[in-house]
């Protein structure tokens, strides 16, 4: 799948730029060779100049479009995607039933295409694969909803995604060949892991798939000193679930780790809600690290949302159509109404598993009024509120996971990640949470924090053991992988990190 390109001459780079720009602007199939040539050129640029100009990211970005052009482009790409969808058993049946003709679709028709529910994809993922496709990779979701969902990708798609990912990391100055990258996500998140490790392959960064192992083992790996030529001395970037990052913070503080024990510069988080409290508390252990948390999901990759400095989630219109649909009315959410993100990934990015109006079940509010952020030209929503099925409706409205998690993870007395549960009660919600102590002060602090987030708490249960939770909120850090023997013994055997930390503290 990965073919490092050999040349990086400027003339060839210029041609590769034109070829890639044609795919982005016109929706024609990508040339993986041209993309890889660009990655190679970007890497050579970084090596020669020590840094890469931010103009390069701008140069490779799709053009900024006005509203009318954007709608026109999206309609054309939607029709193209719908045409491809006709080659799948699921959509062929659906379109025949609705008498839909992809080439004549208008915006009104699109609104009338039923949303594709997650359950349909989960129950028969093969029905979403084009007949002419050549599936190479079957990747699955981690199954936080109970059952896993399969998505297929061709070799071409994977190669393009890996190259695009490498280009993104390079041109946004997120990774370089000097980086040591550790991946602490589930091994089942194949595409994400493949995307990052493939990007590292192109960039020349050293990558290590550590998995979701006991946190003390991960901390030992992060603090381990290396002497690799041309590389940073410690792990400099990590890809991790927010809840597992919370576990690292909690364990790190308990074991006495300090920022000087690590060389971490960038943390890539995803797959769960990232709270301000988690970011703040992570800095107590890891120092002033940059925490990057964009929105992506296996089913719709590479289409996803990018967070701006004002916390909006922006979606690139040439990659796919993003709609916010009110789950109660089934119509486009109006300003002030929340809705689920509904996504149609566009060609040329997807050619194997085809999805049209896929209901992600991720909740957001659409943004009303003009934006003033640096990505104002791109359609946007608020940051994620959480999954629809994990949100609760009480008599006076809805409570979303983000409100609960933001409130709880901001409080030091709540160990990270916040292990909690919540359910509707009369006129509000009941919240249960694991805390370090159960006393009136902690209780008042939690109630105040929840109140600040607009949560009408009617019952509050503080527990000391996660096993005592009645309705625990699912966390990806619980997708632990088994290790041989006692993790601390294993760490001591394989790595000098923990003993050296103890020695260091003793000396101090």
């Amino acid at each position, binding site marked *: 799948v990965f073919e490092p390109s050999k040349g*990086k*001459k*400027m003339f060839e*780079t210029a041609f590769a730029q034109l070829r890639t720009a044609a795919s982005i602007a016109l929706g024609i199939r990508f040339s993986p060779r041209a993309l890889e040539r660009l990655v190679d050129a*970007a890497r*050579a*640029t970084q*090596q*020669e100049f*020590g840094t890469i100009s931010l103009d390069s990211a701008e140069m490779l970005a799709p053009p900024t479009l006005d509203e009318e052009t954007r709608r026109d482009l999206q309609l054309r790409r939607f029709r193209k995607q719908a045409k491809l969808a006709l080659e799948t058993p699921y959509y062929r049946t659906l379109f025949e039933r609705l008498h839909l003709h992809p080439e004549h679709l208008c915006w009104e028709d699109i609104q009338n295409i039923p949303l594709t529910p997650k359950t349909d994809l989960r129950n028969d993922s093969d029905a979403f694969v084009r007949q002419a496709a050549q599936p190479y990779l079957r990747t699955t979701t981690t199954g936080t909803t109970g059952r896993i969902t399969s998505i297929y990708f061709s070799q071409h798609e994977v190669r393009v995604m890996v190259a695009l990912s490498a280009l993104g990391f390079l041109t946004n100055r997120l990774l370089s060949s000097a980086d040591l990258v550790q991946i602490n996500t589930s091994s089942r998140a194949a595409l994400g892991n493949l995307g990052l490790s493939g990007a590292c392959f192109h960039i020349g960064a050293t990558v290590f798939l550590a998995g979701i192992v006991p946190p003390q083992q991960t901390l030992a790996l992060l603090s381990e000193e290396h002497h690799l030529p041309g590389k940073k001395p410690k792990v400099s970037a990590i890809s991790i679930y927010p809840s597992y990052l919370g576990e690292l913070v909690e364990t790190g503080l308990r074991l006495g780790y300090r920022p000087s024990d690590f060389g971490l510069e960038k943390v890539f988080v995803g797959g769960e809600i990232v709270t301000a409290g988690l970011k703040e508390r992570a800095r107590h252990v890891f120092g002033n690290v940059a925490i990057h948390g964009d929105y992506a999901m296996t089913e719709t990759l590479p289409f996803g949302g990018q967070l701006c400095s004002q916390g909006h989630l922006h979606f690139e219109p040439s990659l796919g159509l993003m709609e916010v649909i009110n789950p109660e009315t089934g119509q486009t959410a109006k300003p002030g109404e929340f809705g689920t993100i509904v996504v149609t990934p566009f060609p040329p990015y997807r050619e194997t598993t085809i999805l049209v109006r896929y209901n992600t079940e991720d909740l957001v509010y659409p943004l009303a009024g003009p934006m003033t952020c640096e990505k104002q030209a791109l359609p946007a929503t608020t940051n994620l509120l959480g999954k629809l099925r994990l949100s609760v409706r009480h008599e006076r409205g809805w409570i979303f996971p983000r409100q609960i998690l933001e409130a709880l993870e901001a409080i030091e007395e709540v160990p990270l990640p916040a292990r909690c549960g919540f359910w509707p009660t009369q006129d509000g919600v009941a919240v249960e949470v694991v805390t370090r102590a159960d006393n009136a002060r902690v209780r008042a602090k939690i109630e105040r924090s929840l109140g600040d987030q607009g949560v009408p708490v009617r019952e509050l249960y503080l527990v000391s053991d996660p096993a005592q939770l009645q309705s625990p909120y699912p966390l990806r850090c619980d997708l632990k992988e088994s290790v041989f023997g006692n993790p601390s013994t294993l760490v001591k055997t394989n790595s000098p990190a923990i003993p050296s930390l103890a020695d260091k503290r003793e000396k101090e």
Partner: protein
Amino acid sequence: MIVVFALSVMTVLLGSFYFQKFSVKRPPIGVFNLADLVVMMVMIILLPYLYIWLPSWVAAGIWVVEILAILYITFEPVMRARWTIGLLSLLLTGAEVALSSWVTGKTMSLYFMLVNDLVLMLAIAGVTNLWVQSGMKARDVAILGGFLTIYDLVATSVMTLTDDLIRQTVGYPFTPMIIWPVGSEGHWFGIGLGDLLNATVFPMAMRKAFGSRAGLAAMVLTLGAVALVMTLPLTKTFPVMVVLGPLMIVHYLYWYRRSGQERTLGQFAVYSNAGAG
């Protein structure tokens, strides 16, 4: 002759001054490398034939576009307002075209030579900076010098290509030489664009690769070679690169053996900022 040498010295100094003070706007992705050098060599071989073969108005048109673009790139980091950059570039190219024999129908005037020399000096400073600031290595410049040694010998002394090209282009817009009148009317003395490009780019590339001492030595060496050639009792066109090229190779090899490897532009910037460039 003295004026032409003085103009050559000014060109080399202008290139180095520009390198020290300004960052030319280079392509955001891509580094100049050996493959680009090969393309450049092929162009060097083909272009003279193309200029001789093409109708003069087509060749002049190509030059106008090229020089306009080069002047714009050169002025871009120096001036802020885009309109002043555009206006100055247009004025210079316009003056060059208006004063050329192509328009006036007369032999080259002193004014034409002045404008032509000024435009070429600026263009050489811009182009050489674009090369080096795009990552062209001292190794690449030395290889180019080696290639041009053979090419210049063949094109000038074995064939009549250089003389044919001079006959075809002299007095026309953007005559590819820095020239000055000598003796009786219609006589002039000049140094070729290619020779000056090499004499200018080499000290810059050597400074980037091995430090200011290597750069300064390269400047003394290249200008010394130019001065040496100019003092020769010449009666016909002389291939300057035959002297300049081997000196460039020897100088590069000396510093390469001494330093082990070339610095990247990133490393050069670090040293320069620390005042040890």
